[in-house]
């Protein structure tokens, strides 16, 4: 038993050491770069941070390999490339965009896939915000947060439904498959798996949801949030509403919402057409713009608008090559149609004063490039005041009204800024549409305007299945979601 006594001391020691360590807490290590989900949505500050996370998602910055999705570039490129005819060609090596330009998309196209993923990622962020509005400390704050989250969700759904569904106006909106409408946050894998049976809502159901979100957002976001700050303002919401109404052919409301933006007098056109672009901060013309900096942007090398539109020293690949046919559309003296052909090999966007230039500084040099996106660290306009004039003019013309002003006057505002003589009138639908095509060229409007106008894209009818993106293969493989016609 003496022996046992000797043991006892050490057994006791082992137990002391064990007790010291064995508290489970030693195994509870919290991450430092990320936050556990259960501690995130617990206060107003974090709620607002999740809202800003949704803004960041709109830009397409974050992720592992991708970049430049949604308003960071692809919503623009998908529209411009899918509607490319003789105005522009894809001269780059990425087959993802080439497939769009060739109207020959595959279901495994990575850009198609990544934008689908990113779109719903942002929607999930917005849904998380909307499900936790009670965390806001005041009603005012709550309204502000709710309004922005609804606006973001609506903006994404609007482009998703325009890209992945048959167009509004084809007459079968109430039966055409739209996109799945996810309105609740995904908190667990069980939630995620439950969505496998959700299916696609109809195009008209998706539009209804968009309008519901936007009309609520418009009144929730008070005017005092500021006009052209970096956040979505009540006028941004009106601008987006005017787009949605215009797309639906609801011209009265489109004119009314566009007019609300213009007549707020919060915005002013830049002095020159090119002045509306390549700005480090919002200018008077920006109703909403994607904010970029050197540390936070939609891509510098392999993604983002500058990468594909620019061909300058150190920036861009010159893949989107504007064709002479497009330049030929501009009248002589149109500031929006100038071509600069004398850039030095080391020119950056600061040295470009025309809207178009011959690329310099590397592979693909010598092609005509559009100067709207010349530096990855500068802002990307999403809604400009000029669009509001064009929308108001078109909607008023269609409706036979003069909400705010006459179509002729609105078009002449844009023409005068472009250095052109005002039209004498009477103005025609063709005048208005041409002005819109030229003013908003390469800003992502082309496909949606063609579909709206029911104009053919080359040899393809406006509602051809080739002009609708496929549901990504990775989705089809995971659950039962109906594919679009033609794929």
């Amino acid at each position: 038993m003496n022996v046992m006594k000797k043991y006892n001391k050490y057994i006791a020691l082992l137990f002391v050491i064990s007790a010291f360590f064995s508290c489970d807490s030693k195994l509870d290590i919290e991450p430092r770069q990320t936050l556990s989900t259960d501690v995130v949505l617990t206060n107003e500050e974090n709620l607002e941070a999740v809202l800003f996370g949704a803004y960041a998602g709109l830009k397409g910055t974050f992720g592992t390999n991708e970049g430049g999705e949604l308003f960071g570039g692809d919503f623009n490129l998908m529209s411009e490339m899918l509607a490319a005819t003789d105005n522009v060609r894809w001269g780059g090596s990425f087959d993802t965009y080439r497939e769009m330009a060739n109207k020959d998309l595959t279901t495994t196209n990575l850009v198609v896939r990544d934008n689908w993923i990113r779109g719903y990622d942002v929607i999930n962020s917005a849904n998380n915000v909307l499900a936790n509005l009670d965390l806001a400390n005041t009603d005012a704050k709550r309204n502000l947060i709710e309004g922005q989250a609804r606006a973001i969700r609506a903006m994404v759904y609007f482009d998703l439904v325009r890209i992945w569904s048959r167009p509004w106006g084809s007459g079968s909106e109430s039966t055409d498959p739209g996109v799945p409408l996810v309105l609740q946050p995904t908190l667990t894998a069980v939630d995620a798996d439950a969505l496998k049976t959700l299916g696609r809502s109809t195009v008209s159901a998706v539009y209804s949801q968009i309008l519901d979100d936007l009309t609520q957002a418009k009144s929730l976001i008070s005017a005092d949030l500021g006009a052209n700050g970096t956040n979505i303002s009540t006028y941004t919401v009106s601008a987006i509403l005017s787009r949605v109404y215009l797309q639906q052919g609801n011209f009265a409301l489109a004119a009314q919402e566009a007019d609300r933006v213009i007549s707020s007098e919060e915005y002013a056109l830049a002095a020159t057409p090119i002045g509306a672009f390549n700005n480090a901060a919002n200018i008077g013309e920006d109703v909403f713009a994607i904010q970029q900096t050197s540390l936070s942007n939609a891509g510098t090398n392999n993604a983002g608008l500058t990468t594909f539109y620019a061909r300058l020293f150190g920036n861009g690949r010159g893949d989107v090559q504007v064709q002479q046919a497009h330049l030929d559309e501009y009248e002589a003296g149109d500031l929006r149609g100038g071509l600069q052909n004398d850039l030095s090999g080391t020119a950056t966007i600061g040295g470009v004063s025309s809207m178009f230039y011959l690329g310099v500084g590397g592979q693909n040099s010598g092609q005509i490039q559009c100067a709207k996106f010349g530096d990855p660290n500068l802002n990307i306009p999403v809604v400009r005041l000029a669009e509001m004039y064009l929308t108001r003019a078109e909607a008023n013309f269609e409706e036979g009204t003069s909400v705010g002003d006459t179509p002729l006057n609105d078009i002449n505002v844009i023409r005068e800024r472009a250095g052109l003589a005002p039209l004498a009138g009477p103005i025609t639908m063709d005048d208005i549409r041409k002005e819109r095509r030229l003013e908003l060229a390469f800003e992502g409007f082309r496909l949606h305007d063609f579909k709206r106008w029911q104009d053919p894209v080359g040899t393809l009818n406006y509602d051809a299945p080739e002009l609708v993106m496929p549901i990504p293969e990775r989705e089809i493989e995971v659950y039962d979601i109906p594919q679009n016609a033609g794929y």
Partner: protein
Amino acid sequence: MRKKLRTSCLLLFALLFSATVTFGQDRTITGKVTDGTDQSGLPGVNIVIKGTSIGSITDVDGNYSINVPSSGGILVFSSIGFLPQEIEIGSQSQINIVMSQDVQQLSEVVIVGYGTQLKQDLTGNIAKVSGEEIRNIPVNSFESAIQGRTSGVFIEKSSGKLGEGIKIRVRGSSSISASNQPLYVVDGIPVTSENQGITNNQPTNPLADINFNDVESIEVLKDASAAAIYGSRASNGVVIITTKRGKAGKTNINIGYQFGVSEPSRLIDWMNAAEYREIYTEATLRWQGIDPITATDADRLAAQQLLDTGFGLIDGFSTDFDTDTDWQDQAFNDDAGFQQLDISASGGNENTGFFAGLSYNDQTGILINNDFERISGRLNLDQKASDKLSFGLGLNFVRTELTRVSNDNAFATPLQLVALAPTQRARLDDGSPNPSTIYYNGLIEKENAQAITVGYRTLGNLNATYQIIDDLAFRTEFGIDVLDNQDDNYQGRVTQDGSPGGQAESRSVRVVNYTTSSFFTYDKTINENHNLKGVLGMSYQQSNRNLTSIQARGFPTDDLNTIASAAENTFQSSSQTAFSFLSYFGRVNYKLNDRYLIGLSGRIDGSSKFGDNNRYGFFPAVSAGWIISEESFLNGSSTFSFLKLRASYGITGNAPVANFGSLGQYAGAPYTTTAGLRPWTLSSPDLKWETTKQLDIGIDFGILNDRITGELDYYVKNTDDLLLSRPLPAISGFTSIFENIGEMKNSGIEIVLNSQNIVGDFSWSTSFNIAFNDNEVTKLNSDADIIAGRNRVRVGEPLGVFVSRQYAGVDPANGDALYYDEEGNTTNDINAAPNVVIGDPNPDFVGGLNNNFSYKGIELSAFFQFVQGNEVYNDGGRFQSNNASGFVDNQTRDQLARWRQPGDITDVPRAELVGGVGDGHSSRYLSDGSYIRLKTLTLGYNFPQEILSRAKLSSAKIYVSAQNLVTITDYEGWDPEVNFTGTNRTTTTTNIVQGTDFYTAPQARTISFGVNIGF
């Protein structure tokens, strides 16, 4: 009868008496016994006259004297760890003998987890390499030194670049997304061994910090019964590294110095300027629609002008007919080589032992801009404070400096120089690199960019042992491993990525990893028949990793290139992460009658990496052994001096790589200047380790008095709960969740044979090992393959099989490349050919063969290593060997065999500029990757004792050694031992991508000279 008996008694008495008398007439024999490996005197050697009990023992210096009968007899010299020798006394009065070490002796001590065992008592499978065996091998990391020396341990360097990560697979791969590398335990501390570099560059190797000349032994725990005591990190085997410690006796001071020169072990035959001009002129003519066979000289010149000024592709192609640049030569270093200096002292008395070592290693790689330097200091101390209490200390400080080259996929990497046109100059008249090459000239990078990683490593451990009673001891250990790496990269303003103002990156990583363990050990023999050994204890480990990284561009001049001078930051990040393991472990070994062995072990592992619902895992193992040679029917058998059967079964785990994989998380997502948060991962509360159940059945044997020993093992490893990401509907906002889903199986046979073919003055010993492993993925989360380049994970196939199109050669009619379609017919449309399994990067078997010869101080050792039955895919082949039908890359010389006119029978399609004829991924670029290498050939000479004593040295050896002297392979690239795991590497792609070559550097052939002196 009685008379007879009496006579016998008398006779016996007389005999005894006379014997005594004879012994009374003894003479004295003296001599010295030395150790064959270093010529040092060998203390404690037993010397007996055969057939008598008369004996003696050598003193501290190996000297002895023994009285022998004048009639002579036979002296038997024996010592543990050495082969016994018998010497006829004859008329000699002085007998000096050299004893050879018996490295394979079954009585040797083997390190196991938290203790030691005699090799003959092992019931598990453990491979051991002694430090002596790998001493002075001119490589910078111990894993390459033991390559081929341990059966069932497949070691592969990914390239000939210095300081890069090395792949080790113990009994095959058992994971897809978690690590397949073993757990490394150095002097009781699980050390940091993972890549610490950026994911876009080749992985770094923190194990290169260890100077393996300080290593006493390396044990690889292979089966479950050996490894299960390391629980949830043991599925891939455990490598235990034990450093040298001092022994009682005089202080030994050893100095070793060696230096060597290196060159690429193999080169590729590239086209010279004339051949290049010929094939690209032909390719261009065909592109123009002109038949090259009938083309006129004017046509040819026009085609050359088109390539030159017309397309602006190849500057000078139609004017410079003199230049002939060997770009391959430009990629390699003329002064590659290394030097290493080791100084060590060891010794002690009965209370204190010490080992102190200092080492300097400086390697200049075979690639330009690739150097490695290591300075390492070590002090190991042991102190007996009392009969009961003893302390130990080990400290290792290391500084490494690695000059790195760009990853293989970058134009800037040296070996991509081979793509450049031999018709263009490497340098301009002023000596600067030619800037108008067809692709970026990597020499610009060489001279205007640098990438240096400086690492500081501290490994320290403290331990105390208290002998509570005779059989029971308590030991407590504390170990710390601090790794600090600083990367400083700069690309000057004239480089591709650095223009226009220069670009810099500064990155710092610190990993602090500490472990405490406390355990009781028990060792008791009862009634001589029962022996019981046990271990019971616990341990806690925590590892914290901090990283800061910043990138900036725009520098006033290339000479002022720290971030402070930059105009603009382009990237910045810092991160902190950690994991912990809390473990309880125990083991019992019972031995009955020295022949029946039973072992039980288990570990409970809890980890911060596991989900809430599976915080702790239990990893048990059971094993049994039967030493048949101890049974009466074999005891004394002249055939089987040793025979043991053993079997084990156990469960081990493999922890996930991600520290927080089980948690639902939000990540930062700033918008403009406002900090934002976005959903990042969904929680996976059931997430746990991957589980491997392993059965091992083995035989250990010794034949002819252990002159031949060997091991034979059969094993089956079934792994389930493989961590895989399960795809989710992306409309949820998440694309996947990490869950325990898949299954994989490995089975194989391992054979080890060692023989002392000849002993004595001239000795020859052989060791041979071979291991067969069969890997099969048995379950994934869907039928879809997991794809990483050409390698895939597919149910029913080995991990990483090559899947691509099957190349069918060339159509003699038009030179088209042909492929096999679904029906097995040929087609010239690559898209009509299905993707099929075209090869397997996993070898059928691997092994090594070592022969040691020694004669009077001269030693020769030849070590071969071999890998058989695997394929290698040359991903760069599409550019290197595309019959000039791609862009204008220089081509391998074998492309001259291209199809030229109807009727030509060849397997190289026609040359046609940008025609893309046969340059798609296909089995055309797949080759047999089997090889045999004369890995190490060493010739050494140990100076004899007479010279040594005059010089007052205890040992002196000079040697010349060749590493990778000969490689025999059918592979036509640089080196079949290759793996480029791609950019944007993840653990998963690292596991899947195997046997892929992409402008990947070959191993170095190194010839070195060295000297070791002992005082």
